[in-house]
């Protein structure tokens, strides 16, 4: 049976693509972006998350291990993040909201982590969704072999594709990976006439410059992404770093004026 490790399934998402969507979050990522707001998505194994401030010291979790996926803390202080799921399980949840997708031109979004790392599972799920005409979106950082893309292209209606920075040195420094493969895959996606929506996280001191945005714009000039969305860095993931015992790299939040300036670059022809 085909399984994958999933850390969340959110029904009624308004933010992960067009219309009303269900977003499936895959666990495991091959990038280590310093600004990642889903740090629990990085490891491909189940993890214990512990929110110290909520703990009453009841002791029920004293023998807890990562394998106890069904454990329930009564105070929401401790939880096992990441659960092995079958294609059928996930598909059953996705299809529950079909009428909401149909009414709103929404669908399902596979996100993460990097959902493409569990490609066979993803492919099977995408295929099943397409069989019952559910719109599918794949949210990816793109740092996987082109073969992976080729496998899912026929079943993917939309790619939500991240570009972090055009400067490869900066990219390597802040994500632990080169951007060459990412940009090449993006080109190929356009060449295969895939529908692509570009998402650029705006991280002060990393990529929040006019020059950077111009380069990205120039790169995209020959192509026709359906949308280019700039996502300002936020600190809403910080408590999760603490819960996982991970180190945090903190950035400033970009100002409204800065976001307007950078957005302006893409609005002018």
């Amino acid at each position, binding site marked *: 049976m085909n399984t994958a490790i999933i850390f969340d399934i959110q*029904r*009624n*998402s*308004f933010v992960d693509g067009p219309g009303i969507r269900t977003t499936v979050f895959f666990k495991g990522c091959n990038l280590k972006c310093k600004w990642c707001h889903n740090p629990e998505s990085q490891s491909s194994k189940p993890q214990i998350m512990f929110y110290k401030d909520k703990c009453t010291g009841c002791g029920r979790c004293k023998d807890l291990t990562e394998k106890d996926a069904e454990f*329930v803390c*009564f105070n929401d202080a401790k939880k096992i993040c990441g659960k092995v799921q079958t294609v059928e399980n996930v598909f059953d949840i996705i299809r529950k*909201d079909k009428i*909401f997708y149909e*009414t709103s*031109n929404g669908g399902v979004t596979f996100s993460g982590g990097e959902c493409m790392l569990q490609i066979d599972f993803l492919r099977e799920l995408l295929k099943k969704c397409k069989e019952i005409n559910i719109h599918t979106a794949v949210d990816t950082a793109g740092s996987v072999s082109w073969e992976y893309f080729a496998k899912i292209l026929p079943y993917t209606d939309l790619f939500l594709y991240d570009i972090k920075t055009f400067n490869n040195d900066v990219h390597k420094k802040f994500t632990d990976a080169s951007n060459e493969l990412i940009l090449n895959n993006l080109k190929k996606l356009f060449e295969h006439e895939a529908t692509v929506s570009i998402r650029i996280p705006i991280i002060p001191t990393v990529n929040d410059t006019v020059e950077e945005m111009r380069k990205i714009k120039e790169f995209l000039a020959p192509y026709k992404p359906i949308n280019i969305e700039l996502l300002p860095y936020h600190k809403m993931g910080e408590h999760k770093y603490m819960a996982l015992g991970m180190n945090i790299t903190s950035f400033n939040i970009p100002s409204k004026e800065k976001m307007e300036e950078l957005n302006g670059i893409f609005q002018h022809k």
Partner: protein
Amino acid sequence: MDERIESLVKKTVSGKMYVYPVKTEYDRCDLFLPPIKMSAKRVCEYIRNQEPLIVAESCFTGLIKFDGSVEGDVFNRSGHVNFGIACNNFYNKPVDNLLTFEWQHSAGDFAKIINGGIVSIKDEINKSIEKHKNDAEATQFLETQSDICDALIDWACKCSEKALSFSKTVSNEKYKKNLEKLSRALKNVPKKSANSFYEAILSLYVCYGLIPDSIGLIDRYLYPFYKKDVEKGILTKEDASEYLQELFLMLQARIHISSDRFYRGGESHFCVGGYLENGEDGFNELSKLIVDSLMELPTWIPQISLRWTPKTPHEVLHYMMDCERKDPNKRIAFVNDVPRINGLMKYTGFSHEKAVHYTMIGCNEIAMPGGIVFGFDPMNIVRCVQNTFFNRSDDIVKAKTFNEFYNIFQEEMFNDLCEADKIGKGFQTIRERDCNLVSSIFIDGCIESAKSVTQGGTNTYIAVGLLIGISNVIDSLSVTKQLVFDEKRITMEQLIDALRNNWNGFEDLREYILKEGLFFGNDDDFSNGVANRFFKSLDNWNTGDNYLKKPLVFGNLVGYNEHHKFFGDNTKATPDGRFDGDMINFGIGQSKGKDRNGLTALLSSVAKCDPYSILTGPSVTNVLLDEQLVKKDENFEKLVYLFEAYFKMGGTHFQLTYVSKEDLINAKKTPDKYKNLRVRVSGFSDYFVFLNEGLQDEIIQRTTHAR
């Protein structure tokens, strides 16, 4: 807004447009008359003795208010002695923690008066007198109705004369002409058929005081007048809007400013849109004008429901939800015609042609034009869960399967429904001791049968039952099935023990239930299945073998009162994790974060739970949304689609409140800082800080949906 209306608004919101009743000295020799004749004579004297309220800005006048010295209208029931006795004894004072007395709503058939005039009613009365000529009691009743018609015609004449004499004191030429026009029109309506849009509203305005509840489907019965006048070039959209606004201001001004009801939206509720007899959607240009006109007014009353149909254009739902989002006074709610018309046909026995004319009324009740709602007394449906676990414990421990357990529960539920029916019949017996004379001419069947609306005269009643605590029952059944029969985590004895000890010593079990219980509202097959079974049982019981001799449509609202709190106060612990004394839930939905899977799951559960359309009485679904969610227009558009899908799935009702939980908690602690925080309560809206504690707590416990 027009200057004239602006001035009327100022007067209305400062309480200056309140119609004070004029005290009437009755002829003491009327005591020689039979009671019904005496009562009618007094009503007529009272009507003729009132003073019309006319100000320089008036285009309309003629509202009557009753002061309790005679048997007044059927809604307020002032002067209804026995109704007063029932209120003192049973209003908010349940019998056996099972059933408590409630008000009854009714909607006058205003279209009939507007189109035919009082003269047509008098014709009906004369025909009925002929039919009942050998029945002295019937004839006597019909004569009272004829007398009241005459008094109403005289009242309109009095209003006409006053408008004319007052016009002579007014210097503003435009206002003077308005008053002269008013005086002329009152010579025609409500006595005869209205000849214009203006006269149609005037006819309604004058008659409204005799049955002051819902104005009904004004976008239907006023539309032919609107269309004709606009086509003839004698009415502009602006004029029509002003007339509507003055009508709405009267509905607001009717309540005294010192009453908390002045700020509550449940006092007058009507609908726009909905199916027409020909199967098309009825939302028309007048519907939009009505909504626009009301939204311009900074008032609280009346409130509107959009009757949605599968043929309602998306743009109309979007427009109404956008108005609702921007309305600081929260006057708009949404209902679905499909389950409701199914329910009215199936249970109430109306034809499709008749059912399409229903209107929402009061907080969120339903009535037909020319009809009344019977029953409607709120019942504590959680009591049968208590009886099952506390009185039938010897039987349920023997249950080997959930089926066996459920059958015992079902017996208890049926017993309670029958018991509630008996108590309800008692309430109705008291209500029937009053003979209402004032409103019967507006209720279908009363003239023909020669009986008062309160004494069985109507043929257009809807029988309604109100069940408070439905989700507690479904959750309790679902959790019992899950823990005792499926997971076998605990035995039935342990569960009974936990409840008897009010969870003392079973804290972990309770915590587990709260975290992992398969509660209603999560769109899982397990709790959905239990919900279906519960409604199926209700459907099986609902054969019409009750005191109203008609199957009921059920609802679940609490109106202005905290039934959910006082029922809860006296209901022991229940398997859904509820403590002894905790309030129970009203509406059909979920609270306290028990709906864990987001809005699509909650709405799916609600829409799917009742395939029988039995929950199509006064049923409410409250949804609390984080205001951040809809700040972006793009997200708001998705919200419109979300509720459109919910209606497509069969959801009956929704109403929205956009607020953060922190604001609600802070508002309870420091009300002075949150005076303007307006919320949807139970089919009506109100300022949060004005609500009693039980209602405030209920709203705080609703789950906030932030995505």
